[in-house]
């Protein structure tokens, strides 16, 4: 005898954290040759989800797969959820072909955020490498929108070449028209490039800040974050003044599956933003 259908498996789970909601691509921008930004709006009448700077969403490309992508837009404008994506794997490469009007699945936001309350009254040193600027951009929007609550704001951003730098128009605008000091560096310069050449860690000794009232936020490849933290420590910054955004293989995004386990932490749930003091010992453990 067939069992009656279990309503738990057949009813729509609109509040289920594992069920993606349809979002339409309202805007699309090429950032460089392999990186693009998608601006998403809910397909139905759903109210936009707010988010905190540093959080991520799971984006689902129907029939292909799901990937965790940091939210890169302005937290004051949650109705237009920006995600900056680098085409690297199967899902993100297919995502690069999406056009305005196409629909993707979205669930989130998930994870911890940059500790902007702890940054108040501090000089804030923002260190970004490559696509690591994307998860920091919402924080920068927030810091600038509440400028008076913070001390000196400094962005140190490194990329491979001048063409790899993300959000170039916005970087210029931030530097010229806001209180954010922007220092850019590339690994390989061209003759036309008038800026700094060298890894982003080389910018740290040259920046002015009050180490007793300063904090740093870092996002980029893990090696870059480790060495940036080391340079900040040489300047006298304590590990609990430094925050990093970890990247691991996030699948469920809610701490069930364990794919993103990082020692005793789940990066999806406890992170991605961690105090460096908490994760520095784990960063030295191989295969964690």
């Amino acid at each position, binding site marked *: 005898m067939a069992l009656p259908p279990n309503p738990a498996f057949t009813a729509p789970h609109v509040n289920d954290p594992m069920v993606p909601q349809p979002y339409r691509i309202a805007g699309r921008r090429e950032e460089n040759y392999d990186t693009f930004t998608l601006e998403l709006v809910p397909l139905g009448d759903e109210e936009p989800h707010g988010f905190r700077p540093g959080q991520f969403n799971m984006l689902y490309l129907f029939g292909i797969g799901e990937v965790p992508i940091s939210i890169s837009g302005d937290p004051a404008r949650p109705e237009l959820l920006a995600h900056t994506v680098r085409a690297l794997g199967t899902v993100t490469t297919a995502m690069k072909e999406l056009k305005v009007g196409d629909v993707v699945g979205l669930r989130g936001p998930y994870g911890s955020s940059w500790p902007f309350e702890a940054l108040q009254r501090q000089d804030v040193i923002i260190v970004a490498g490559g696509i690591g600027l994307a998860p920091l951009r919402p924080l920068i929007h927030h810091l600038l929108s509440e400028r008076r609550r913070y001390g000196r704001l400094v962005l140190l951003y490194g990329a491979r070449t001048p063409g*790899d730098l993300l959000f170039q128009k916005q970087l210029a605008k931030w530097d010229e028209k806001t209180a954010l000091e922007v220092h850019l560096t590339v690994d390989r310069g061209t003759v036309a490039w008038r800026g700094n*050449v060298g*890894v982003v860690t080389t910018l740290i000794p040259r920046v002015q800040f009050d180490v007793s009232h300063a904090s740093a936020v870092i996002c980029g*490849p893990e090696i*870059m974050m480790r060495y940036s933290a080391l340079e900040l420590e040489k300047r006298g910054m304590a590990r609990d003044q430094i925050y990093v955004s970890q990247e691991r293989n996030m699948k469920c995004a809610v701490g069930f599956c364990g794919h993103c386990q990082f020692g005793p932490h789940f990066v999806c749930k406890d992170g991605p933003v961690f105090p460096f003091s908490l994760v520095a010992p784990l960063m030295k453990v191989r295969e964690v």
Partner: protein
Amino acid sequence: MVTRDLSRSLAQHAFFRGMDEKHLVFLAGCAKNVLFDQGTFIFREGEKAGVFYLLRYGQVALEVHGPRKGQIRFQSLHEDDVLGWSWLFPPYTWHFDARALSLVRAFAFDGVCVREKCDADHELGYQLMSRFAEVMVGRLQAARLQCLDLYGAPA
């Protein structure tokens, strides 16, 4: 008198921080103030390296040129940085090009003069070489990170 004035200026440069005044006065005899306009090549690969510079103002690019690659800029130096160490060892030739990206002001040190003073005063030689070693280690560590192509696609 000029040498003593120059030694006071040298004492304010990050490279010489903490160095004895007698050594600075001694070294000032090998130094002079120089200025390079924007776009000027300070030195070029293969030329005789008889000098080193302590940058006081401006930005300098280190570059190498290759066929079909053009001019590749791999490092930039700024105020308080040291430019050049090919004067230290034979064959005393520059390995790369150095170009002023802005107006540059610097102290220029005659390499032969400095080497002779270091030979005559080993304490001075130790102090100077310790400082160069620290700069070299920092540059080597940064160059290694740069070689890793950190921001590239993960393997």
